[in-house]
């Protein structure tokens, strides 16, 4: 499946907890599509604590989560990876 819709959320340099709130909202909006593997959320954040809270919330909702350390920030991917 190469036509996975990728939604990029760049939340670098915003107020805490913008990252958490925006991601929670997007996860709810695209609930079904993420579950079906049709949509992936790709989040860029510099809020260190969200590398704990977001994966925790996403896993509770049953999604796959991956976190990568990139240069000066973190990239969190929510949704099926293949």
């Amino acid at each position, binding site marked *: 499946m190469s036509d996975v819709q990728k939604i990029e959320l760049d939340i*670098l*340099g*915003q*107020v*805490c*907890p*913008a990252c*958490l*709130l*925006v991601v*929670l909202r997007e996860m709810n909006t695209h609930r079904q599509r993420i579950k079906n593997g049709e949509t992936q959320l790709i989040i860029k954040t*510099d*809020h*260190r*604590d969200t*590398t*704990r*809270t977001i*994966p*925790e*919330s996403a896993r509770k909702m049953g999604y796959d989560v991956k*976190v990568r*350390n990139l*240069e*000066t*920030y*973190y990239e969190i991917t929510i949704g099926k990876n293949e």
Partner: protein
Amino acid sequence: MKKSRMLTTDPLLLATGITLLGFVFGIVLYRGDYCMVAMLRDFFLIRDTTLLRSFVFYFLSASVLFYFGGLTGLLPFVPPPTFAPASLATMAGGLLFGIGMVLAGGCVVGTLYKMAGGNLVNWIGFIGILAGSLLYAEVHPLIQRFSAQTTVTHTITVAQDNPLVQSLLLLAIIAACLLAIRRWSRQGSLHVISHARGYIQPWKVAVILGLLNFFYYILAGAPMGITTAYAKLAAYLEQIFLPGHVAGLAYFQENSISFQFEKILVSGGAGPRMDYISHTELSLMAGIFSGALAAALHYKEFKIYRVPPRRQAVAALTGGILLAMGARIASGCNVKFFLGGLPLLAWQSIIFTAAVIAGAWIGTQILTRYVIR
């Protein structure tokens, strides 16, 4: 006989020691991203209790250390000279502080370690805190009168009313803390998963904070405080432009603290001069910021990404002003009242904490409705 080892008689040693403590504090706060705003706010937002639970570890370590510190004379002043009976000002200040800190995205120390990462929102919050401190200086006599007329306790701590009640209460809380910790460790829920570079587990951060505050208390004669340092910094800045005005303000003339130690009078205030506040709070502030900056640079995370969205900038500035006003009205912030006063069962701390929780809830409502959309 009580044998004291407090170092207030040597300003240089005091300032150096506290700067070093602050440096370690800054590193630990940054690495654990240990935000006392998130501690309350994230409970309201997503019922996340990870950071709240870590506070149990803080309370445990600090209350035991403070207790034995008092017994052995390592801590010559229990309660510390920075505390007073509670008043309605404690409550009003706590409420404003709670709202402000959520809008600013950080409390007085959170703002410092987050600034070190390069987030401009927190720099705006910092400016707000300075501005709020100056604003307070204009209305200080009024607030002081209000505070004096509305005291709600005659004593500073529960112990001063009844030492037995204080001991029993502390023992009960400590027992409850231990039981909770045993339960969490059996569940395996103490260890949390974070992907942040150099992350330190929240419970470990909490225990380290307990130790740091204990050392600070030994050195300075009172547990950590930091908001008067903001007022002092702001006074130095205002003095550049309006020296006559600063000289005329009572708040910048008075000492906010003065106590006798081994025949030496120790005093300090918010005014633009070198005194006890410079050696303690201002040194702590410099230490925290540089420690956090060192950590951010070490993990190569320092970066200014963008000018924040306008709503967030306005919220941060307003939040900074509110939290500074709140801290001044209550004559202290979460650092003094949560970290220093709760383990001592100080009345001001108990009332302030309740008010901050209410304020944080209000702040969270404002944040989710008007700021982050």
